[in-house]
């Protein structure tokens, strides 16, 4: 194993104890032979021995108090507006589903309206034709006209 590779492994997996046994044995064998890598290991042992956690600081107490106060304020202000509250917390797919449903209903309502309008028109034309048939004694108009004939004419 080359020193470069060994050093890279020492800096990460070896120090953090995440090497498989055969690779660790290879590295240990290399360390026995190589002074440079041994020195390097002694320098970087700081990362496994030194307790860096000691640098961590305590969280100031007032932060929770501020968070709590702000949440209480928001909770009380949202009580008067309960109907809008859950709407903003729908999941993404629920918004998409609602959108698709709305579009379907919108186009369906347009088509239903068109159908109703068409039926009304046909009824009106048929009424007119019936009226014309009843008035006319002309030979051409003796036979009863239906809507289809009227369109052909």
């Amino acid at each position, binding site marked *: 194993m080359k020193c470069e590779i060994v050093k890279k492994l020492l800096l990460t997996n070896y120090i953090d104890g995440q090497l498989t046994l055969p690779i660790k044995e290879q590295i240990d064998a290399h360390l026995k032979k190589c002074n440079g890598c041994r020195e390097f290991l002694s320098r*970087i042992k700081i990362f496994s021995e030194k307790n*860096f956690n000691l*640098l961590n600081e305590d*969280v100031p107490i007032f932060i929770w108090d501020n*968070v*709590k106060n*702000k*949440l209480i304020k*928001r909770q009380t202000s949202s009580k008067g507006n309960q109907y809008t509250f859950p709407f903003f917390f729908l999941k993404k797919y629920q918004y998409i589903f609602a959108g698709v449903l709305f579009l379907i209903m919108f186009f369906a309502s347009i088509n239903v309206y068109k159908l109703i309008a068409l039926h009304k028109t046909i009824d009106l034309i048929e009424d007119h034709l019936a009226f014309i048939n009843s008035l006319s004694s002309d030979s051409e108009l003796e036979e009863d006209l239906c809507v289809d004939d009227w369109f052909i004419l």
Partner: protein
Amino acid sequence: MNLTEDIIIAAISGDLKAYEKIYQAFAPFVFNVALRIIRNRSDTEDLVQELFIKLFYKLRFFKREAKLKTYIYRMAVNMSLNMLKKKNREDKRHVTLSKVENFISIKDSNSTVSIQKKIVELAISRLPQKYRVCFILRQLEDCSYDEIANILNININTVKSRLARARQYFLVELETVKKEVGYEM
């Protein structure tokens, strides 16, 4: 701290006592990571507040603790990096001389342990941003490689190479700081 599903569900329903338990479990991580990334105490305090207020309204999506933990860790790192950008503080590798001078002035009055802590802190703060984040997560917060990869949304091999670089940089910076301060650890 182990957070049971009951605590999370209670917090979702608006129970602030339950939410306080979640806060106690994750606030130290958020605070310390943000403090090391932003390097400004008052901004860090604002960020912690903002994060936990946002989190309260997003809790319902994370009923399992493992998911919640990763989410909070990622949120903390991302918000810290965003705040850093927002404040337009470029990631200067070297802190100003005045900070080192301040450090030297307090050197005589503090204990050896606290001086060592300050030196290590100074060396960490001098690491380039992307290496610093990896270093903080691994060395200070004891995150596994997998966790770091999840939090930063990067490949595990990238985590390893960044960590190796960060540790190399750290050793160099540690020596530099020690020389500047004239201190032998």
